[in-house]
């Protein structure tokens, strides 16, 4: 008798729990799952210049393979990704160590350190556009006062990728640093004491003890940054729109322009699905790496 009552309460509870999750699940299915399925379908459609839609089979995907702009965009995406990720991880770990050793940091300092990545990326782009202006910008003035030649920064086809990587790294290195700092603070102090007794130098302690123990945290930071970096959009769209020429035309920028400037929705869908597959692939690869370096 009481058993049935217990089952009844349990069933009721399950139902209530499902009801609590339902709005979020229904919203996500309506706004994400269904649209993604729809995108897959759109990827098989051809949109004519008059907006007429017809079934195209795999035409969009075969176009993608022979499209020079796609391969160029993939190259730009990967170059920008690798450069930015390396910069942000290296300087992020450095900044985390500096912050870790500066005990009793006042809250205002922490606020200043998080300010770059709380700022809209679009604003960061506007700001750096002015600072990096080739003729009147403050950056070139600083270069020249050190006797260095001025640079064209965002206006130079060969420098635009490193420059965008620099802007993004200015914005997100403190974020990586805060994640790594969290990892540093959770390391057991006993391992350092042992190293100190053995008389290990600070550099050796870092190389042999801190870095290996931090690796899982660093990989986590790498995953979180990879997801954003592979779909790089805001800063490029506001500063160069993929230019000069097509020098900073990442896949996300290219897909957006194909879709909303040329209104070739079908081909844009094929491009975006390919980019999504790349992002998920990177996340899965890093997840395996995280498993390998866990302790």
């Amino acid at each position: 008798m009481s058993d049935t009552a217990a089952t009844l309460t349990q069933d009721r509870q399950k139902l209530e729990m499902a009801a609590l999750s339902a709005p979020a699940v229904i919203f996500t299915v309506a706004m994400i799952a269904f649209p993604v399925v729809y995108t897959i379908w759109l990827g098989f459609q051809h949109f004519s210049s008059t907006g007429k839609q017809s079934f195209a089979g795999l035409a969009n995907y075969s176009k993608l393979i022979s499209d020079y702009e796609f391969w160029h965009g993939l190259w730009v995406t990967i170059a920008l990704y690798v450069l930015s990720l390396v910069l942000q991880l290296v300087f992020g770990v450095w900044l985390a160590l500096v912050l870790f050793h500066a005990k009793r940091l006042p809250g205002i300092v922490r606020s200043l350190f998080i300010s770059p990545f709380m700022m809209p990326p679009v604003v960061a782009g506007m700001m750096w556009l002015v600072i990096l202006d080739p003729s009147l910008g403050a950056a070139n003035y600083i270069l020249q006062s050190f006797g260095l030649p001025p640079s064209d920064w965002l206006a130079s086809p060969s420098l635009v990728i490193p420059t965008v990587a620099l802007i993004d790294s200015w914005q997100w290195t403190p974020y990586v640093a805060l994640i790594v700092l969290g990892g540093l603070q959770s390391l057991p102090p006993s391992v350092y004491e042992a190293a100190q007794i053995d008389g290990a130098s600070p550099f050796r302690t870092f190389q042999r003890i801190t870095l290996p123990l931090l690796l899982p945290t660093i990989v986590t930071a790498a995953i979180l940054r990879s997801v954003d970096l592979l779909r790089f959009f805001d800063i490029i769209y506001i500063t160069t729109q993929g230019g000069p020429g097509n020098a900073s035309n990442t896949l996300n920028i290219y897909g957006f322009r194909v879709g909303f400037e040329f209104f070739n929705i079908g081909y844009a869908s094929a491009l975006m699905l390919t980019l999504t597959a790349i992002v998920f692939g990177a996340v899965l690869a890093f997840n395996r790496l995280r498993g390998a370096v866990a302790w």
Partner: protein
Amino acid sequence: MTDAATTDHWIRRLNLVQLVLAGVLIMAPTVWMVLSSFKPSFEVTAYPPTLIFTPTLDNYVELTKTTPFLSYALNSLIVTVGSTALGLLFGIPAAFAVSWTRISWPAILTLAARMAPGTLFLLPWYVMFRQVGMIGSYTALILSHAVITLPIVIWVLLPSFDGIPRSVFEAAQVDGCSVTRILWRIALPLVASGVAVSAILAFVFSWNYFLFALVLSNGDTKTLIAAAFNFIGEGSTQWGALMAAATLIALPPLVLAALVQRWLVSGLTLGAVKG
């Protein structure tokens, strides 16, 4: 002993130098932006750049006169507050249910939006919203931005709900409380600070979001971020007004972030790191 003490002293000094260097690199661009926004127009583009000048509000006045800055700001506020409210409304019960039942797929499902490029959703949304004539509506903008706020609310609140001892709920259950009642009357007051942090983070990231409003808004509903192009202008050097716009757009998220900086780390990593 004295040797070790001297080394220690030098290491601490070296660290301070590095801390200051990092601080300057991080702060200088923002300081330059704010300074430029208060410069008289002839000084903004002065070369060599000037650091000493008589501050003026001209750029801010010019901005409100030559662009519909205030109505863009109002649009941003409507979309951001709307999407944050929607995120909280759907996210709070979902986070509670996930924490209680340990069935995590609803939370993981919402994360998909955090991983896929926004254009992937924007293409079908554009086709769908156009068919029902919703392009340019606040509804379309609020719904699209809720895709950003919902996972933030859920993942920030999950650890907070997890932190409540089970016995609290079990006692309430014995007293015959329904699950929904437990959530609103018992659990929610206990995680109030988590709700505040999640609301602020959701607000910041919705305010900062660029891509969706770029396509889904029209002249009347354009948000500040999507209107950024209007301030840059075609080959103009109205840098003063541009920097004034940039400063004003960045102000709300920066002020809010400073308020909750202590709790931000775990929230920003969507639970990947306990801050």
